[in-house]
């Protein structure tokens, strides 16, 4: 007897996420690449901008934060689906009695965790290097909310496109080309909210609320489109199939097709 869909989804998502994390813990490939990249970027930012006065670094810090997230996210998403592509394991999961949404949840979840590990280095790094980033220490809860919401929005849409390319045998180069434009709205929103945080804008809760709403929309979109992106959209094809079948039947009985 099959369990109810929400139960299946929850259990299978957790199992797949555990499998992803075990795989990552075994070779630490994504975490090491991403954290090393983050540290290098932090060092370069420091050498380039540390001599500037606070008023000049203030507008730069949000850009530095989300630029790094965008690059780390691309590296992580590309590699996460490369693993599936190399062994064609994504197709094995798609053919198995697994909720396809669980695959999306697990991939997005593991990518989010890697991004958050990098942000755990990046945000304190920026706060220590630039006086403008001191606000991150002063308002830790708001900072955590900002980082989590920004990264969540990024992986919600990024995972969808990365999966589409992995399933379709697309090239990694295409992922970068597609990923930056589609994640730009999320990154812009996160950038504006970070600026509001650094300015201690009284409307910050409203900005965070809007980010959360955007995340809900993007997650909904990802959940809705994940399966059609991977195996093709059934409903439109069904209508087409039905029309084709009707035509075939008419042809075999020697009657003309109605117009």
């Amino acid at each position, binding site marked *: *007897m*099959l*369990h109810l869909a929400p139960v*299946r989804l929850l*259990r*299978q998502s957790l*199992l*797949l996420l555990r*499998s992803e994390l075990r*795989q990552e813990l*075994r*070779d630490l490939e994504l975490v090491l690449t991403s954290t090393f990249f983050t540290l290098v970027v932090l060092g370069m930012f420091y050498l380039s901008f540390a001599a500037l006065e606070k008023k000049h670094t203030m507008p730069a810090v949000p850009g530095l934060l989300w630029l790094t997230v965008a690059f780390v996210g691309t590296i992580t998403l590309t590699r996460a689906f490369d693993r599936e592509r*190399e*062994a*064609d*394991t994504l*197709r*094995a999961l*798609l*053919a*198995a*009695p*697994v*909720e396809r949404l669980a695959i999306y949840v697990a991939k997005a979840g593991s990518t989010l965790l890697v991004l958050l590990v990098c942000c755990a280095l990046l945000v304190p790094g920026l706060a220590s290097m630039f006086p403008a980033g001191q606000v991150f220490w002063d308002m830790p809860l708001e900072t955590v909310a900002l980082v989590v919401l920004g990264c969540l929005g990024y992986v919600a849409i990024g995972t969808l496109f990365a999966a589409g390319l992995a399933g379709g045998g697309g090239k990694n180069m295409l992922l970068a080309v597609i990923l930056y434009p589609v994640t730009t709205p999320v990154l812009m929103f996160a950038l504006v909210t970070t600026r509001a945080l650094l300015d201690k804008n009284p409307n910050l809760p409203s900005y965070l609320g809007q980010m959360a709403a955007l995340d809900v929309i993007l997650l909904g979109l990802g959940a809705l489109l994940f399966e059609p992106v991977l*195996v*093709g*959209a*059934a*409903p439109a*094809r*069904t209508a*087409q*199939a039905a029309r*084709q*079948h009707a035509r*075939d039947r008419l042809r075999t009985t020697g009657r003309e097709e109605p117009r």
Partner: protein
Amino acid sequence: MSGAQQPITPIVLRSISQRFGRKVVLRGVDLELRARSITGLVGANGAGKTTLFLILAGLLQPDGGERRYGERVVADIDLELRARLAYVAHAPQLYPGLGARANLELFAELRHAAGLSSRPADDVLRGLGLPAEALDRPVSTFSRGMAQRVALARAVAGDPELLLLDEPFTALDARGRAQLAGALLAERDRGAAILLSSHDQGTLLRVCDRLVLLEAGAIVREVERGDDDPAGFAARASEVLGAVGPDDHAAA
């Protein structure tokens, strides 16, 4: 099998068509797969065999035609159907860092999470001739033949009603092919409908109840093993196989 549920066999494809861009890959394929029967799908490379497998497994939506699984005409191979079929591609599709046992256990856990049963991994793997010392070795260290056995073990562990095998004999030695053929006959006797594609003509002749020739995306010939005339089947099947080309394992 699934107790009180309606069987998903026979599986009937009607007028299935598929194109990729301008290339027409399948042209109005009609095919029936029955329970307790092994159907051999033969055809040259590029004839459309793998596309047909993907459509049957729900990994590709056909452009046209109808798929019927038992009493149900389906537009989308949903989880309930996927629970009752298994697909083995010509790549083993295993997690290379995991052992054979861990690969099977992951999929068994996913089945259990959905409320489905699965045979114990060790039993199935040993049944397919995987040595005990190889059970926990990463499959990245396996030969292609061993990996193929693990892939088949994963497929049969859930006792599927429909077993789709796209060139499962690739890279297997003579002993491996004989073991796999034995396993397929056991699955058929259990009640499964099996669609098997292979270039190993000897094994096809030995195990198949029916041979279907796919040419340029269309089924052009079918021969069936009758109860009364085994020699006649062998002769007619040889004609079909001859149309495909030389046997991959003729020298083996």
